[in-house]
């Protein structure tokens, strides 16, 4: 386990910024952590372990240093991983963090929830509600109508263009959804 170096930090923060925008500051610095024996709230930080990036409270990190590197499987919340070619991808385990601070949201109609949970992209006909002012390639978090976060993706069209589209166009490219816990259990 080691903290992220400069390049890695910029990459991770860029990716997060696409989804949470200015709330990034809240995630990185101002999120109080009540975990641990300390009565005063601590802070959260990012650590890298075996090509996976974790979002951990500092007190937990202190205690985790007691475990050998090879034996440590995971800590805190995994938010993403680096590929062999050093590209960073966000994974589904970070959904809670993203959903709480998301800027751009899309709500799905009940009929198209299943389709998204199987890994398909979101079509316009399945969109119940959509936040205004989404631009192309913005990070979008997908919810059900009951405000349950289902996953996230990348916007294929801006909200403006979305209006004029026909119902079978793709609105959000699929990146990750909670169905993966069942489908790709081994790969997580």
């Amino acid at each position, binding site marked *: 386990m080691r903290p992220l170096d400069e390049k890695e930090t910029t990459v991770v923060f860029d990716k997060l910024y696409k989804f949470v925008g200015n709330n990034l500051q809240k995630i990185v610095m101002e999120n109080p952590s009540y975990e641990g024996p300390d009565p005063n709230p601590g802070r959260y930080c990012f650590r890298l372990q075996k090509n996976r990036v974790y979002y951990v409270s500092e007190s937990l990190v202190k205690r985790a240093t007691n475990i050998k590197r090879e034996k440590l499987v995971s800590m805190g919340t995994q938010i993403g991983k680096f590929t062999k070619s050093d590209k960073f991808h966000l994974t589904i385990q970070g959904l809670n963090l993203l959903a709480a*601070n998301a800027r751009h949201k899309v709500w799905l109609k009940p009929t198209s929830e299943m389709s998204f949970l199987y890994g398909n992209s979101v079509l*316009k006909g399945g969109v119940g509600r959509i936040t205004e002012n989404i631009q192309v390639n913005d990070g979008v978090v997908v919810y059900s109508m009951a405000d349950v976060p289902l996953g996230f993706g990348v916007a294929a069209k801006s909200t403006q263009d979305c*209006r004029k589209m026909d119902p079978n166009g793709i609105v959000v490219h699929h990146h990750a959804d909670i169905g993966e816990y069942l489908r790709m259990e081994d790969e997580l």
Partner: protein
Amino acid sequence: MGKKKQKVVLPPELPPEVLDKDIEVSDEDLQFVNQNLDYAGFVSNLDTHSITKHVTRVADVKEDALESLYEKRLRKKQPNKKIEENAIEVDPVDALPVKTLDGKLYYRTVPREIKKVESESNEGDATGHDMGLAKLTKAEKRAKLKKSRKEAKKQAKEEVQQTPQADVLDEVKNDLTAEEANESKKYKLAELGMALLADPESNIKSLREMLEISKDGNRAIVVLGLKSLLAVFKDIVPGYRIRLPTEKEQEMKVSKEVKKMRLYESTLLSSYKAYVQRLIAIEQQTIYKRVSVRCICTLLSAVPHFNFRENLLAAVVRNISSQDDVVRNLCCATVKSLFINEGKHGGEATVEAVQMIAELVKTSDCQLHPDSVQVFLSLSFDEDLGKPHVADVDGKSKNKKSKKRKGFEEPNHLPDNGKKKTRQEMMTRTRDEVNADFKAASFTQDLSERRRMQSQTLSAVFQTFFRILKHTMHPTSEASSLLGASGSHPLLAPCLNGIGKFSHLIDLDFMADLMNYLRKLAGKSSKSGDLSENSSNYLTVSERLLCCIVAFKVMKNNLDALNVDLQDFFVQFYTLILEYRPGRDQGEILAEALKIMLCDDRQHDMQRAAAFIKRLATFSLCFGSAESMAALVTVKHLLQKNVKCRNLLENDAGGGSFAGAIVKYQPYASDPNLSGALASVLWELNLLTKHYNPAISTMASGISTMGCANNQVYHSIVSPQQAFKESSLEQESIVPSGGIKISNKKRKPGKDKLSSVKVRPDVNMKHQSDENEVRKKLTEHFLLLRDITENQRLRGELERTTLSLNLYEQYKKQKKQKRKTKMA
């Protein structure tokens, strides 16, 4: 004045001619004559010449010539007779003639004139001044006409009659000349006006005379003249636009009627033009400003289809932002009536007016009175203006198909079809001609023409709106340095209202820009980050609320494509609720915003809804009844709609299982999504149940018990706006003297009618012209109040006296009893 018809009376036949020398005079006759020379003197004084002339004049003349002779004689006699008539008409007391030492009789004509004038002026006063023209009856008019003619003739005769009173009369004349002249002009105006209205065609020249009179120096006369001309023109102007005949047409030989018509039209047009020019010239002078503006406005609203409409419109639009309230109200009312009565002018005036107002906004850099843009709200457009032209395309394709079919069938049935085709062609041709004639005859507009004009109007309107928005975003440096903070956007409120009203007609392309602008505007607070944007750039809370409201209205009207969620505006609204101050900002706008953003059927993010509920509950603790009512109604609404938020009513401080990601409530969070309100509890409701206003306390207790029932069928129908209005009016009413009915929980809070007298002084202090009404109403109100207290006091006294009387009677009874017992 009727010519006296004379019967042709021939003189009696002459006695047979007897020569002088044949006459034998008897002695007795001679004696008689010599004795009575005096009596017989007349014979020598006989004017034989004139008598013979008299007699022979008519004798040998034939019938027709005879008539004309008599007529000529009459005419010569008439002026003399008229003077005599004068003598008889008026007070005989003053009509006594004067006999000079010479034995000549002088009739007092001149003083009688003055007397007559005075009596006439009294009449004139009685009939009322300014608009008394129309009220004078025709009989009086005719009498005045006669008198004026006589006066004119008398003016000529005065020079002839040199009376010894001439000097005195001259003096008197000079004093009264001005008044006389005014009166005479007034009456002249009146007669001319009536004559024109009675028969415009023949009296059209009198228009010029009226115009002349109105060029007088005296202000009252000018005003009267202008107003009477206005009344005349309003009635005379025909229902079509006059087009003067061209050179060619003038050279053509036309019938008498057409010539007469042309003359009439050209005179009318030229005098109308002169009148309009005069009005516009006079408008520059402040003493005449109100009158001229009133005339222009009335003309424009009465005859908007006539010529010179552009000049009138230009004058009206120039004054539409004047500082003078009366002038401005007049102009705005006129423009509104133009927009509403489109049938009168076929829509062209609307386009012109809107374009002119847009120009005005542009040149004055958006510093106008809000009324000038408020008039746009009275515009109305066709419903299908936004939809494209589908009909034509279909028609064209149909034509093509039919043509193809014809061409195909031709080679098969050549000989028969030849005849049929020509007949069909003839039929279609005649049908087209008939259609064209019908269209020309009926004044209905072509649909496409109407559409074109409306789209022009719409584009001008939106141009103005966007310009105002842009100006609000980036005011020029001069404006920002000169003007203060909140006063620099007077046009913003009506602009936003207009956008809200016409939002369904906005093109989708502009929608994104518009929303961007609105978002930026809503976000402008006094503490904007950039140093370049000074405090001169900030908008008041009301204006920002208006921006949010308009954004939602726009979205609602364009819902057919996609259900878009306005995240940023909710964030803004969340902070605006904190910044609201009851005295400074308008509560109605807040109530409207609450209704549109929260209460209308929208599905909310749980976190966001909970955040609003919590903040509104805290808000209702801080302000007066009106805002609290509005907030509580909204809270109830939200709690009913979002079932999950009802855990706010439970006592789980940590939020239990519903809290979501954020475990602690952040009261100062600016983003409702990150506030963690699901983890809080609505303890404010407990405090509110002890509110002094019974409506609020019942409402609060109602909400806190809402969580118990599983199935909430009872829906609150009152909107926050209604609740706000009703609560605020209740505040203004007098404190009820009777008992207050304890309201049932089930009863809707807004409908709590207090049993006692509820005097609602609907005081509208904004209009200066209603001041008197306000004063009257206030005096009534306070008199009533005083009467009520008087009543109470008297009733109290009455009760007291009855009580004391009863006591006394009891005392007397007791005394009697005592006496009885004593006796016994």
